[in-house]
């Protein structure tokens, strides 16, 4: 999973369109695997993913978006094999966060993997 997230981060950071669209986005993307009791945190600072860590979540000052699903679903989501809107509609994915953060997350998927 960590490898998938690192590849995703590299791809997103290198993509000019993603950087342009997300702008100065600062958020912690918290990914929770409901079947494995594992958590990963992608720290997004000023539109750039600065770190990917497998760790517990800090209740810090940063805004958070929590994305929860099975490990397989999360892997598919961050490798382009899963449409996030469809997955949320199907109940495969739970997303907690501000609407604007959810839209940004979807925009990244849209740019990287198309509609």
């Amino acid at each position, binding site marked *: 999973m960590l490898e998938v997230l690192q590849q995703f981060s590299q791809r997103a950071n290198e993509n000019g369109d993603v950087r342009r669209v997300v702008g100065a986005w600062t958020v912690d993307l918290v990914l929770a695997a409901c079947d494995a009791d594992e958590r990963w945190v992608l720290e997004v600072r000023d539109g750039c993913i600065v770190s990917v860590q497998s760790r517990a979540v800090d209740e810090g000052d940063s805004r958070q978006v929590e994305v929860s699903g099975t490990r397989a679903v999360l892997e598919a989501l961050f490798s382009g094999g899963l449409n996030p809107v*469809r997955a949320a509609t*199907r109940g495969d994915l739970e997303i907690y966060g501000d609407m604007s953060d959810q839209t940004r997350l979807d925009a990244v998927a*849209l740019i990287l993997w198309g509609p």
Partner: protein
Amino acid sequence: MALGTATTKETRRLALVGSGMAISIGNNAVLGSSFAHSTPLEVTLAVAIAGVLMLVIALCFVEMSAMFPGGVGLRAFTRAAFGEQWSTALTLLYILMAIGMGAFEAHLCYSVFRAWLPGAFASVLVTAILSLIVWINLLGFEAPEKLQTICTLAVVGMLWLLALPGLTHAPAPTPVLASARLGSGLLLAVPTALFLFVGVEWACYSATKRSTFAVELPRGVRWAIVIVASAYLPLSVAFPRVLDPRVIPTLELPHLALAPTGTAVWYLAIAISVLALTTTFNVGLGGTARMLYALAREGVLPKTLARLSAGALVPRRAVLLVAGVVLALVPWFELSTVVQSMPIVLAINLCVVYLLALCSWLKLKHTKQARPSLRSSMPVWPVVAAMAVLAIVLCDALASHLSSGVALVMLGELVLIGSVTALRPVPEALVEQ
């Protein structure tokens, strides 16, 4: 203590979001239309009954939204309950209803201006304001929540201010209505009154944390319903006391008739009405466009709608489509048949949508769910009772009030929804591997 304060703050925020989405100037015309077929007592009773119905409906929406956080509420849980095609049809019906309401609000905005400006100036002004709202939406600017809150409170305050003299006014003699059956007026007044509460369920989209769904959201929607009821119950009593009940349904802006023309209160009411109409239109436009965008992202609607503008992250094409359809519909509201049919059409659509939403809740409740968050804790009996009431009023509306105008609009809706659902079935293979 801090936790308690945060909970109260979040509850208040959600209550204001929900009530703000429900309270609109168009509601006054819808409430007024009830007096065409119901006695004043039946209308007031209907508002109270609709409030209780909406309480059950909204709490079901809360539970089901908690099951699908991040998904488009109605779309997600009707899909889980009834499958792809029915869910698509129901979501499209909801979108059409929102577009119809938007056109109705835009028409009322024109009526507000026409109350103190010549027709041509009013048309130009309305077109300019609506274009400005569309442009603001395209820029991705969302009116600050504080402005929406102020607007909601201003409208509630205005309605209280306008209703107050009516409450102390001696009741006018009730005219004999054409309705022969006892309580038949109540049957149609209930779905019409339910319309006053539409939008409370949108508070579910503003819940951002897991814990919010369990605590603040249910409390927030309860308070939202109390706020909406407190705005419209006094108005339902005041209208027939001040105005002739036979005249009320013919007024597009009955609340303005409660204040003497040309007075400071009248101008204040106009100013607040314009503010409310524009903010409602702004929020409705953005929300409906996002539903279209989500359907396009799923592959249900053409993928051309599944595009976001860079920077603002606005579904530009969806916004333009919704705005275009709304603006194209507005002139039709000049026809009296359309204006008179609209409350009935909306009432029927609403009953269908909410009835099927409650069916979804019932089905999900009795389906064995793997995820704990998919399990419901609400008792069944209030939901079944609400479904029974909705079914009765829906059958009555279809049997007794299906005029040619209403039938034509509904046929149009059916053809459109049927075409989209049948011609664009969502291919399972389109989904990710």
